């Protein structure tokens, strides 16, 4: 604590407190008391967190076969997997979201019979496109990471497993995948923060997550800066929670020696 509270830090903290005080007293915060905006904000934060969590999970599950296909797959699986990763990593996420939403979204109604199918009520909404686009993005980036992790598992481990008479699937399940996942874990925390930071993009396809809610409040009240500041603070807090959660999680895992 002594090391942290050096004289210049105390001055900086005082300046920061003064800045916050100026913001609180000089800016308009009455809209925060409006219950309508409060519930919208809570809903928006919930949607952001939900989108981040769900798409991370789906993306990671997809990333494992994509990584595997690139490492041990035959050419007819390895080339499409490599192509998929290149396209996802080489084009902006915003464009991927728009391709799915505007492109596929306009293609579906023209397919005969799809309007009468049970899927239509789902396909008509925006969130499936958002979930698919964000998940594919995670799959593309993490597929590349998984490829590196799978390659990084020492070859002796796999040879030992093979000499024990394990089947290829058992080797994957018991030896290869656990060690690869353990190598990937430290990067997943960072990737989750990146994923959270890309969720505002889905507001462009009418999904009311935190960013869109702030935009709505700005349009309703004609207040320019205040909702944006709240938005930045909310994202910083969620980022902090994610970082702390992953730190706690990593501390619980057995450390790899050597």
């Amino acid at each position: 604590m002594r090391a942290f509270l050096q004289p210049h830090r105390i001055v900086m903290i005082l300046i920061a407190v003064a800045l916050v005080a100026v913001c609180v007293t000089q800016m308009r915060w009455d809209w925060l008391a409006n219950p309508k905006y409060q519930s919208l904000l809570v809903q928006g934060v919930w949607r952001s967190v939900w989108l981040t969590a769900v798409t991370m999970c789906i993306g990671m599950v997809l990333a494992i076969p994509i990584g595997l296909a690139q490492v041990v797959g035959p050419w007819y699986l390895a080339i499409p997997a490599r192509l998929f990763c290149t396209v996802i990593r080489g084009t902006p996420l915003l464009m991927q979201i728009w391709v799915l939403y505007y492109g596929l979204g306009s293609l579906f109604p023209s397919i005969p019979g799809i309007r009468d199918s049970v899927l239509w009520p789902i396909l008509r909404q925006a969130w499936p496109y958002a979930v698919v686009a964000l998940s594919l993005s995670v799959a593309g980036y993490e597929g590349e990471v998984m490829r590196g992790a799978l390659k990084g598992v020492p070859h002796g481990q796999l040879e030992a497993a093979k000499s024990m008479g394990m089947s290829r699937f058992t080797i994957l399940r018991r030896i290869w995948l656990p060690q690869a996942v353990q190598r990937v874990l430290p990067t997943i925390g960072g990737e989750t923060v990146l994923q959270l930071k890309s969720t505002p993009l889905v507001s462009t396809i009418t999904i009311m997550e935190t960013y869109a809610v702030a935009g709505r409040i700005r349009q309703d009240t004609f207040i320019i800066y205040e909702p944006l500041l709240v938005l930045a603070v909310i994202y910083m807090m969620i980022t902090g929670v994610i970082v702390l959660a992953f730190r706690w999680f990593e501390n619980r895992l057995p450390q790899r020696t050597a």
Partner: protein
Amino acid sequence: MACPPASQLSSFELLGFGACGWGDTLLLGLGNSIMIALGAYALGFLIGIFGAFGKLYGGPVTRDLTAIYTTLVRAVPELVLILILYYAVPGAVNEVLVSLGRERIILPQFITGVAVLAFVQGAYQTEVLRGAILAVPQGQIEAARAMGMSNLLIARRIIFPLMTANAMPGLGNLWLNATKDTALLAVIGFSELTKATFQASATTKAFFTFYPAAMALYLMVSLTSIYAFGRIEAWARTGQRDVRG
């Protein structure tokens, strides 16, 4: 214009140049994207250099300020930062101008876009360059100091040449990010490639002509950049021992 309805045109005609094609719109968008990316990247590099040296060799206040800058920028989504700065930067410029007794100006969108993206890029470049400087062997810097070189000379003659190879992979990734982040400016209405694609496809309803074409353009930029950065890194590593042996 005497163009037939878009549904009667082939993809080839839609992507072509001239009165009925959108090819020139897309290429103009691509040009805009690349210009913004270049500007933001260059400006971000300057910020990154100062940030990295400030973080490593600055006084206690500089160190804390750069730490706050990189932490805040990397914790908030780019889109939110872009929006905040998009309103704050012209506002601040005009405040200064008014207080100096000048008239208000309207900043060109291009300059605001570059400034905003550079501010974001700067934070990431600071971290990459800091890591690269740290990887320069300490003995080299000490030897230079023992030779009586000034700090500026050490930075120019010793640190820069030695850190280039270490910084290249990170800088390459950041350049790819810069080209892709220009797409975010579409949200605030700047007509770069993503926005141009959106307009073209919304007008003609030919979604599966324009989006793949634009993606191919982005991919072309990415793949060329990956190749170019690979060459630069190979050049920067000339004379280094191959660790693989």
